[in-house]
């Protein structure tokens, strides 16, 4: 009952104030709206945009360069490259595709790990579970498998291209070596993954594969001089690979850990080196200007100098 009085007292002032506010609002809101529309016309000026992209995105050479240089993912590339280096018919894009597939494999692989237990009892069931129960589980597993196969093909084609264009030649000899190692690791990654579903296909493929290890000279019990060096099925290199004399639970676990942790880490490190060396060795090798035989024994011109 006490509040009623207060209301009555403040009534006059309040109405005036409200009227004043309405007047002001008639001007303010359209102005703000106009500003907003203007602002939206150029989204690159918004705070949100600039906070993400660290510079303006004018279509200037500088910005094009910055677009690459100031991006953590893109600065793998130089800002500018030889005009012909973008030609797909030359590069075949296989290195990039391999890397992309590696990312796809990592991603799908991580998702698969959520559902998979590398034990004799669980492994096969988990794959069935993935196929039948997990939402998108089937496509996930399919993508992982096919991407792995595709990656092997892409690596081969990449290597094939690199050889055909002589890109292993000076100064890229070492990077070629890294590449060869990456090929080996790609195959190993794929091979270690083969056993994981614990089905007949994987089991026998891995059995056949690791049986060869028995015959390792010196280190395998069936290899030359292995017997003489005291190698038995229980202490040779195959035992070391499988964690047992037959493909069993330990082999499953080992192959799982190599597949998910060991080889990916090593391969990643090698990949980093590989990419770094591509840059350091002067970007991709070509398409370089053709060289004439008579120039062969002259001091070699740097790749940058080519093309004039």
């Amino acid at each position: 009952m006490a509040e009623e009085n207060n209301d009555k007292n403040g009534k006059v002032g309040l109405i005036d104030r409200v009227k004043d506010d309405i007047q002001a609002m008639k001007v303010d809101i359209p102005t703000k709206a106009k500003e907003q529309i203007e602002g939206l016309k150029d989204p690159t000026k918004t705070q949100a945009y600039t906070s993400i992209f660290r510079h303006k995105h004018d279509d200037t050479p500088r910005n094009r360069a910055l677009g690459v240089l100031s991006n953590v993912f893109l600065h793998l590339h130089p800002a500018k490259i030889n005009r012909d280096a973008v030609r797909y018919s030359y590069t075949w894009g296989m290195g990039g595709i391999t890397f992309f597939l590696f990312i796809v494999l990592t991603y799908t692989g991580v998702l698969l790990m959520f559902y998979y237990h590398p034990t004799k009892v669980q492994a096969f069931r988990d794959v069935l579970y993935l196929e039948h129960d997990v939402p998108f589980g089937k496509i996930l597993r399919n993508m992982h498998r096919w991407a792995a196969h595709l990656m092997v093909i892409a690596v081969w084609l990449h290597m094939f291209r690199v050889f055909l264009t002589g890109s292993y030649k000076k100064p890229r000899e070492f990077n070629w070596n890294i590449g060869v190692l990456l090929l080996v690791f790609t195959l190993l990654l794929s091979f270690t993954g083969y056993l994981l579903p614990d089905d007949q296909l994987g089991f026998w493929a891995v059995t056949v594969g690791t049986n060869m290890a028995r015959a390792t000279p010196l280190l395998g019990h069936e290899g030359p001089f292995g017997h003489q060096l005291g190698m038995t099925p229980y202490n040779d290199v195959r035992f070391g690979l499988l964690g047992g004399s037959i493909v069993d639970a330990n082999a499953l676990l080992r192959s799982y850990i190599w597949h998910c942790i060991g080889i990916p880490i090593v391969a990643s490190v090698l990949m980093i080196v590989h990419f770094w060396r591509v840059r350091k060795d002067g970007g991709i090798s070509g398409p370089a200007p053709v060289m004439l035989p008579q120039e062969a024994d002259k001091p070699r011109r740097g790749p940058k100098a080519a093309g004039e």
Partner: protein
Amino acid sequence: MNSKKGWMVAVSVLAACLLLLIAACNKKEEQPANTAAEQPAAPAATPIDQATVATIDGTVKFEGTAPKPAKIDMSQDPACKGMNESENIVVDNGDLANVFVYVKDGLGNRAFDVPKEAIELDQQGCKYHPHVLGVMAGQTIEIKNDDQTTHNIHPTPKDNREWNESQPPSTAPLEKSFAREEIMLPVKCNQHPWMKMYINVVKSPFYAVTDKSGKYEIKGLPPGTYTIAFVQEKLGEQDQTVTVGPKETKTVDQSFKAAGA
């Protein structure tokens, strides 16, 4: 060059999408349009016009020498009296009694009301009266015991349920019925091994049992073509096909031959 491969892929994916669409459409077409199915109602039986009904009658004969009825020793139970002869084949002057005659086929899917009144089966003098009985499926049979001895009634059917009940003297009649059609369903009394009779359970009211003079009559038949079956407990079944017109009375005779003749 770079676009070439892209196009190849694009075309292949598009083609795949198209296939998919077709597949999806097909799926839809498979969906049935109509749902609730209704059982076809049994066609209604045409009612019998009482004005046009026909009659079949006749005599059943026995050809050849009638076997002499076997004598039955009923001395086992003093309460048993009366004629002690087997009723397997009862022939009098060549007339064969106790033949069950019924319309076996030709009535289509007509259904008939089951008479409310019971049919009587009497046990008297350690014999069943009658020896051959016709009854409609579901109709009540009233079984009486007029003897001063305990009987048991033991039908041994093929298609109906078997039962065996004791009926001491002076007890109330048993009321029984059979649900399914069965011809020459044997009934016996285990205590008096000679006691035997046959119940014929049929679906229509068109049946008869020949009397001592081998005569029978089936009345109230709608005009049509029928298979009439004559069944004798030992001599088996013989069929005849007969066509009767409206209000017609047809005589259908039948004869059985002695076994082995």
